[in-house]
Every structure is written in C-alpha cells, then in structure tokens.
C-alpha cells in the first residue's frame, strides 16, 4: 500500500503566502505603521516651524519706521545660548529643531496658566514696526508679529501683591551649546516692573517680517520692549512669573555696573566702555543716528516719574 501524502499540520499553500512585493517592502510598511501611531498618540505636537508664514493684522499705530533688510536682522544676533559671535548664530541655528513648547505664567497670579503657543496667538496677532537699540550702540528696525504682553498677563490676573514680572528662557544644553559655558548664570533671565509689562508697547513676538521667528531671533516667542536696550527683550521664553520683588537678571548679575535692571535707552548715560549718545545704523559702515531718550518712545516717560534715571540705569 502506498503511503498517501498528507501535508503536515504547519503546511500552508502558496496562495496563503505574503505577496512578494509586500514582503520586499516590509520596512516601509513598518515605518508607516510607526509614524501612524506616533502621530495618533501626540496629536497636539504639530507646531509651526521657524520661517512659516504667520498672518497678522497690521497695527497702523506702529508703522512709521522703514524696516531694516530682513537679511541683516536675521544674520546678526546676540544670542549667547548659541555663540558670543553675532555673525555665527544663524549658522549654528540651521538644522536645529525646537522641542514642543508651552509657556507657563505663574507666581502671584489668581489664575496661573500653562499655554500652548497657539492659545497665546489666539489672543490676536498684530504687526508692529519697532526700532531695536542694542546696548552695543547699533540699532535696527524690525516688523514684529505678535500679541501685546498685557493681554497675556491679564489672562493670568495678577494679585495685588504682584509688582514685577520675571521672564526665563529655555535651559537646554543640548539645544543651546553656549549654555555649556559656566561664565553665565543660565538660563537667561530678564524682568520688568508690572507697569512696564502692562504698557501698551510691551510686546510678545512670535514672528517677524510676517513669518514665524527664525531660531536665531528668539523662536518660538520672545519679548520686545522697544524703549529698553535689546538685551531686555529676552528670547525663547518658557516661563513668566509674577513676583513682589525685583527679579535677578542675567546681564545684571554678570556686570552690574554695565547693565542695570531698567536698561532704558538713554543717550545721557554712558556704557562704561563707550558713549551711548549715538548708534550705528545696522548695515552701514559709519552712518550713525543720535540715540533718543527711551529710544524715541516718549510715551513711556510717565512710568518713570520721580525716578532718578541716572541711578536707576
């Protein structure tokens, strides 16, 4: 008797085999599956990238100045988190990806908040053209896209004890190679009095020139206080704290004689290393303009009534 061929239990017919093309492309399939799950798990992480278009409404009140060429203002950046060389920063920022970002508003607030960037943008983006006067005696004119700082602070509703607003930048030694140097007390910190922060001119910028901020200009959001020296306009903010005491600020801690807490632009008060009476027009060789008190924003003068500006520089 001939033994009948009977397939073993694990036998599968050819028709049941995985299609050859699928088999050869299995890696692509796995990758797609992986991507699908990550984007499912983290739906809120799709955020705007530096340079993306940013729609904002022109604020006609702040449109008198002719902006400096974008090429200049985005390639000349005091951002010590990357480098102390202003011309190096842009290159160091190329290829850097920002982590998911939230901003915490905390301290002496009746309603402490942690907000996504889109939630702050939803307060209403507008474009304002401001002159930025660097303490190094040069200035540039930038069209910023953002929201008035007062709107955000009002959301948190400061208590009656709140007198100052402290700002802190992201601390991340991997992202910011400059933070590996021990000379500076990282993270970058700045501060304003509450009335200064609530002033109409104080601005939180998400973009410039109608686009999301380039990283070298302080992405994803930065402060712009146009009547103060540029270093007060802290970049890449992660936390805003309402306090009852004057907060410590990075430059004031490093060189208290050179960088005061107020740091209002004032042609009459020298920097210990140079006169502040004039400023170089960025992009030019020797062309300078006389520096104006409060950088040409006299409407802030009432904030300092009765304050000795020479002592409180």
């Amino acid at each position, binding site marked *: 008797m001939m033994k009948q061929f009977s397939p073993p239990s694990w036998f599968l017919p050819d028709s049941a085999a995985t299609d050859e093309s699928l088999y050869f492309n299995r890696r692509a399939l796995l990758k797609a599956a992986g991507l699908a799950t990550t984007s499912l798990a983290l739906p809120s992480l799709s955020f705007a990238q530096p340079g993306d278009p940013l729609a904002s409404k022109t604020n006609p009140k702040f449109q008198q100045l002719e902006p400096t060429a974008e090429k*200049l*203002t985005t*390639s*000349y950046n005091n951002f010590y988190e990357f480098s*102390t060389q*202003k*011309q190096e920063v842009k290159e160091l920022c190329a290829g850097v990806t920002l982590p998911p970002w939230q901003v915490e508003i905390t301290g002496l607030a009746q309603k402490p908040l942690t907000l996504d960037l889109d939630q702050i943008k939803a307060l209403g983006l507008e474009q304002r053209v401001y002159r930025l006067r660097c303490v190094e005696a*040069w200035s*540039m004119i930038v069209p910023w896209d953002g929201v008035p700082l007062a709107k955000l602070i009002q959301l948190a509703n400061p208590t009656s004890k709140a007198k100052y607003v402290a700002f802190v930048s992201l601390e991340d030694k991997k992202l910011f190679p400059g933070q590996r*140097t021990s*000379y500076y007390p990282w993270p970058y910190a700045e501060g304003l009095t509450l009335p200064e922060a609530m002033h109409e001119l104080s601005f939180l910028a998400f973009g410039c020139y109608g686009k999301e901020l380039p990283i070298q200009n302080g992405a994803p959001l930065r402060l712009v206080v146009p009547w103060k020296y540029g270093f007060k306009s802290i970049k890449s903010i992660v936390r805003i704290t309402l306090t009852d005491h004057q907060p410590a600020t990075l430059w004031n801690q*490093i*060189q208290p004689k*050179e960088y005061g807490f107020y740091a209002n632009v004032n042609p009459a008060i*020298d920097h*210990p*290393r*140079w*006169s502040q*009476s*004039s400023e*170089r027009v*960025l*992009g030019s*060789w*020797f*062309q*300078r303009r006389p520096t104006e008190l409060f950088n040409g924003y006299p409407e802030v003068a009432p904030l300092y009534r009765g304050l000795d500006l020479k002592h409180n520089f």
Partner: protein
Amino acid sequence: MKAKAYPYLFILPFFAILAQTALGDLGANPVETISHFTGNWAVFVLLYTLALGPLRYLLPPSKLLSWLARTRRAPGLWAFFYAQLHLLIWLLDQILGGQELAKNLSKPFILWGLAADFILLILALTSLKALQRKLPWKKIHRFVWFALPLIGFHWSLKEEGDPQKALLWLGPLLLLYGLRRLKLKQNPLRRAPPARNPYPNSGRDDKNSA
C-alpha cells in the same frame, strides 16, 4: 623666493579681509567685523612671535627653530601692522561717525588697548636696523611681555568681563615664558643653541639674555 621671505605670508589675512570687503561680505556690521578680525590677527601673530623665544630654550636644539627665533623681527612687525589696522578702524569709526572721541578715549576698555598698542609702537620704532645698533634693543623689547596682560584686560572686557578666551590664548604663552625662566634658573649654563648674532653691536648681552 627665499625662505627668509616667509613672514610675507602674514599679509594673507589682510588680503582675505580686503577681498571680503570688495565682495561686500562683511555682514551687517562691517566696522565691527574688521575690528574683530584685525584685533584677532594682531594677537595671533604676536603670540607666534613671542612663543619662538621660549620654545627655542625648551625644545631640543633645532636649526629651524633657532633661525625662526632669530628672524622674528618681521613677524613682530606684522603683529604691529594688524594692531595699527585695529586702531585705525576704531579711529575712523569715531571720526567719520561723529562720535565723542575724547570721551570714548577715556574708557578703561580703550585705554588698555591703547597702552598695549603704545608698547608695540615703541618696539616697532626701535626695531629699525639703524636704531638697533645704537640702542639696547633686546632689553627694550622685553617690554613686549607687559603688553600681554594689557591685551588680556582689553580682550576680557570686550568679552563682557569673561577672561576665558584671553586666558586660552595668552595663558599658554605665559606658561612657556615661566617655564623658560625656571629652566634658566635651574641650569644657568644651558643656553640657546649657538646662534650667529646678526647685530654685533646691538646691546645683546649674553650675561643677561634670559
């Protein structure tokens, strides 16, 4: 071209910045770019020039090293050249920009730099061959070591008071200088490999040539 002419290579950075200027490639603040560039090169060339002396004592005798050290007048003058460009662009910026020159001149930051430059100026003037024969130029030229701390202060102030960069560059040189002094103290008989003195009446005194 003779080997003797090698210091002419130190003109290359000058050509580089000239080319950058011609191409309009100096960035948003051309004056600052030139100022930093020339300041850096003044220091680099000066450090090279000054390192030759101690290295000649500390390293095993070598003809090349001793020749480089003997002919370091030319690189020294190139350091002076870049220092003058550094000063010139600052002065031009003050004058053409209508700045408060007198006020800015009185700032310690500027004074440290000017003092260092003054030392370099004296050294450059006394390195004229005609003067070398009349003056104790070797003794005068030891003043160059005073320029180093002045440069260090000037540079550190520029770096917002952070001395790290200045120390990184100037520190090793001061270390070399100290090592040489130490070595001479321990073994005063050890001298540099015999070198032909190019300026026989120049005040070069072997008893004090530390």
